[in-house]
């Protein structure tokens, strides 16, 4: 293993001090001169026509500076998916009807929050409620209420704007279907025919909330030249810039997304949200900055949830456990708008492919509109739902055939060097070794199958390290300063995952500088180059590699300059600790500072600026097909093997997760503290998903939109945690690194579900695993 000075070291985070002192400014902490406060009027109905809106009384309230409705925000639609096949279907404010409880209907800007709230109360909306549909299988039937009719684009679609030369076309909604996918490989019928044993099971996963501690917020300020400055709690500069520009009808480069601290994201802040557009519309209308901070209840109801899914899995195996065929059918219920439905269904498949070598498979999915809150990515985006189903079923198959479940997995896991059907090659793959190590460390064989209300279970998951999505890559700039310190510019947003620290480490290592010799400028769309964002698991692999290349470029220039000054060849030189020296004669050395100053004088003020770029998959242009699943997808996968040990109280049916062990292949860990933090985070989050978390809806209304009723793990709910460090190196990643932030969650959920089943001898087919479900399953067991 190569020796590094900065990467691979447990460096404390660079933004620690500013956070522990309370100085870190999150978007809701920022006040601009003359700022107004915005609030949003939301639909109380799951499905209703808007007959008329009267804003006169609201506008007349002293302190109210603007009131807007759909006629002010206009017919430009937006959406996470906006392609010729799937045109965007959302509006900043409802135009002629509302489709879910919480949908945005009007917005107000006033001198303070109380006045804004009072103004909302004075807006008179006449609704005509119409029949609603809440169950996706009901919504698919003929005669079900139609959530959408035809979606007719009024502008070019995003794909067109982003250079994919296709044209937007209308989408006729049939049976409330918002998206379909169908991907296959091999011959599924033949695969099942050749199987000795076939099992089919149905699993149900509810919507959950990301529940980041910082509620969603947008501060927008239009200046007199028509330039928009925004401070957002977000996960991608480029996406926010693009959609704000499009919806408001201004050039993309006239939108500046400023650096702000972000209080957690987990996928929940990647969507385009009405409140962001509305803050901008209100600012433009009033000529003053407008800040909209959402309440926690609004975050629950209107800031997107994770995807509801019904997962039907049919798997065929040989009697020795070799998987021959798998047919997965998904019914995805993204709510009243498409959200990320086609993407989640594609990813549900794409994240399965790298795990087991299945020769024949068919993955089908249908996304169905219902009159409920909208669903979007959440940490794993499709993987948690399908891993819960597929890993649970694998255990059941093992039990039916009398096979050891961990051995069954080992028999089928992919290996380094495997090439997936779509052409992705697994240059690094730590699944097999992960299973071995996890089995050993947890004393798996000793504990498995003992019953007595104690159980141990395993789950496997895979995750991409970046894929093609606007803006399709990242850039970075490293600027040397006359004092020898380097300023790093990267657009990666820091929302807790440690990217500010990791990027700084990468630049420092490549340049041979200590960490305190890097000044970081991050996540400002005007100051920083393009960035792929923090929602595609591309932080290290793509943005980190761009940073490394930029640092390498700067280093190369430093070396060239030093060679000139020292009258040596570049090959004779080496870099260390801010100096370049002649290897054979280390006393012949120059500091970076000297080199930079010399270059300024000798090279026409060239102060040495390095740049670097990186695309997730260099060879492909734009996208794989979301609906057909063909084409290269990502250049590296992260892998997780999770083992959970649980105890079930037979009298209360309460599950206690005793310990979670994760063997995660994230390639080379740029910062072991970050890696550990991400995995522990997912061990706890997975516990919440497996046992506690569920958005409960009644007649379209979310009935638990608060932390009192939607329970996330507290300090007394957490398991013990063990991390088995990886030793794999991903050749294409910076120093060998790849993704770590969102793979393990799915593995943990599956592991807990399997552990519970091992403990009590029955299977729960839906999440969360509640005491009532356990009692019911135990009672039905006898029958």
């Amino acid at each position, binding site marked *: 293993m190569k020796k590094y000075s900065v990467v691979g070291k447990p460096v404390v985070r660079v933004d620690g001090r500013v956070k522990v002192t309370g100085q870190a400014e999150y978007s809701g902490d920022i006040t601009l001169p003359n700022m107004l406060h915005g609030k949003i009027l939301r639909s109380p109905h799951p499905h209703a026509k808007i007959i008329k809106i009267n804003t006169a009384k609201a506008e007349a309230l002293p302190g109210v500076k603007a009131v807007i409705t759909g006629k002010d925000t206009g017919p430009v639609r937006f959406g996470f998916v906006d392609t010729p096949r799937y045109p965007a279907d959302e509006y900043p404010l409802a135009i002629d009807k509302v489709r879910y409880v919480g949908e945005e209907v009007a917005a107000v800007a006033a001198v303070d929050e109380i006045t804004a709230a009072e103004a909302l109360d004075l807006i008179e909306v006449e609704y005509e409620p119409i029949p609603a549909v809440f169950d996706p299988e009901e919504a698919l039937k003929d005669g079900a209420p139609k959530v959408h009719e035809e979606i007719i684009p009024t502008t070019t679609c995003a794909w067109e704007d982003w250079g994919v030369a296709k044209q937007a076309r209308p989408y006729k909604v049939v049976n409330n279907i918002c998206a379909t996918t169908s991907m296959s490989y091999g011959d599924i019928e033949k695969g099942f025919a050749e199987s000795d044993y076939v099992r089919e099971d149905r699993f149900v996963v509810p919507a959950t909330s990301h529940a980041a501690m910082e509620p969603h917020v947008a501060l927008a300020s239009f200046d007199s030249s028509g330039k928009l400055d925004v401070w957002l709690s977000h996960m991608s500069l480029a996406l926010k810039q693009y959609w704000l520009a499009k919806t408001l009808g201004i050039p993309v480069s006239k939108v500046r997304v400023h650096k702000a601290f972000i209080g957690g994201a987990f996928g929940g802040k990647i969507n385009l949200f009405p409140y962001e557009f509305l803050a901008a519309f209100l600012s433009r209308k009033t000529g003053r900055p407008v800040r909209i901070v959402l309440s926690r209840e609004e975050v629950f109801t209107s800031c997107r949830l994770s995807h509801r899914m019904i997962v039907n899995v049919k798997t065929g195996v040989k009697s020795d456990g070799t998987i021959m065929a798998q047919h997965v059918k998904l019914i995805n219920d993204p709510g009243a708008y498409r959200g990320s439905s086609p993407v989640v269904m594609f990813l549900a498949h794409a994240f399965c492919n790298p795990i087991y070598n299945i020769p024949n498979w068919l993955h089908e999915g249908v996304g169905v509109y219902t009159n409920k809150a909208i669903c979007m990515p959440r940490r794993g985006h499709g993987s948690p739902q399908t891993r819960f189903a597929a890993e649970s079923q694998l255990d059941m198959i093992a039990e039916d055939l009398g096979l050891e479940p961990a051995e069954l997995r080992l028999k089928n896991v992919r290996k380094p060097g495997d090439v997936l059907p779509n052409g992705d090659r697994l240059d690094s793959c730590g699944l097999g070794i992960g299973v071995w190590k996890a089995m050993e460390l947890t004393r798996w064989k000793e504990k498995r199958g003992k019953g007595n209300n104690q159980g141990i279970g395993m789950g496997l998951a895979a995750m991409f390290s970046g894929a093609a999505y606007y803006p399709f890559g990242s850039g970075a700039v490293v600027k040397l300063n006359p004092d020898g310190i380097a300023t790093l510019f990267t657009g990666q947003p820091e929302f807790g995952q440690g990217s500010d620290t990791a990027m700084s480490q990468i630049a420092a290592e490549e340049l041979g500088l200590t960490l305190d010799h890097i000044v970081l400028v991050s996540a400002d769309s005007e100051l920083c180059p393009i960035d792929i964002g923090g929602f595609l698991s591309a932080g290290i692999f793509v943005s980190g590699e761009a940073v490394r290349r930029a640092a390498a470029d700067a280093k190369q220039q430093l070396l060239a300059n030093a060679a000139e000054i020292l009258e040596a060849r570049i090959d004779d030189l080496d870099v260390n600790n801010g100096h370049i020296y002649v290897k054979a004669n280390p006393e012949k050395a120059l500091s970076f500072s000297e080199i930079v100053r010399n270059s300024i004088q000798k090279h026409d003020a060239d102060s040495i600026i390095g740049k670097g770029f990186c695309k997730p998959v260099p060879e492909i242009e734009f996208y794989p097909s979301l609906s057909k699943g063909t084409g290269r997808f990502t250049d590296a996968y992260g892998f997780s093997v999770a083992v959970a040990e649980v105890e079930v109280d037979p009298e209360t049916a309460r599950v206690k997760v005793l310990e979670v062990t994760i063997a995660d292949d994230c390639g080379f860990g740029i910062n072991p503290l970050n890696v550990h933090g991400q995995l522990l985070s997912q061990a706890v989050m997975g516990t919440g998903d497996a046992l506690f978390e569920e958005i409960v809806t009644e007649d379209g209304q979310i009935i638990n939109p608060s932390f009192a009723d939607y329970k996330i793990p507290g300090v*007394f709910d957490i398991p013990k945690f063990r991390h088995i460090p990886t030793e794999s190196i991903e050749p294409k990643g910076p120093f060998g690194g790849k993704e770590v932030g969102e793979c393990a969650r799915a593995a943990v959920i599956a592991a807990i579900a399997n552990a519970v089943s091992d403990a009590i001898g029955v299977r729960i087919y839906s999440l969360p695993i509640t005491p009532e479900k356990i009692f019911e399953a135990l009672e039905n067991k006898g029958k």
Partner: protein
Amino acid sequence: MSTSNLGYLLTLPRFNYLAPKTIDEACSLLDKYGGAARVIAGGTDLLVSMKKREISPQYIINIKAIPELDYIHYSHEDGLKIGALATLQSVASSSIVKDKFGLLATACKKVGTPQVRNMGTIGGNICNGGPSQDTVPSLLVLEAKLKLVSLQGERVVPVDSFFISPFQTALNQAELLTEIQIPTPPPRSNGCYQWLTKITAVDETLVGVAVLMTSDSAGGLCKDIRIGLCSVAPVPIRARQAEELLRGKKIEADLIEQVAQVAADETRPRSRANYRRRMTSLLVKRAINEAWQSIR
């Protein structure tokens, strides 16, 4: 004006604020404003309701400035007297309460979180009047009394007739709860409070069971038993039929099972009913065993 449609905004409605310095002053204000006023003590319940726009009182009367409402006094003859403004934390950590009325200390410690216990008062917890108030089962089995004061004078109401229906108590609009009076339990008595939460470890109570038992001088018979339940009926209740079964009898495993089942049958849970009944039975059994062991 109700703005219940906009409860999702969580902004407080406007109100007039009053801060009386004496009990008399407080009672005058309550008398004057009646139903348009609400008393604020800890505020952890009241402000939440107001933010959700469930209620929008025109007047908020802060009684925390009244010095003579925050105390914990004990004498063997008079029993325990707790001022209504004693915080849940002060009751939970009081050595006299922990020593002689342990189940009440346990119950107070269970409520909320450390922050909530520093702010919330025992009086507030009682006057909330909801079905799930953790302090109430203990007060029921300790047969506590509540002193209610108004301009008309004062009256003492037993806890078990204080709760009328969910969030509606016998406290009338012009009255102030000033004191909780708890008689010293008989000799050879002990009790406990057990609960299960709804979902996570720190969470609202799904089933709360307080038990107080007294043994005879020989130590073989259950001379008296009181069972208090919360979160399993519209208001906290005594499981009197279950008590009857055990009172005066010898403690035996089968009998305890039966008693526990009868207690479960006395519940009227509104949601998660089967599970609540089952857990009531379990916790009553566990509580009886714990209380009984701690006497002998």
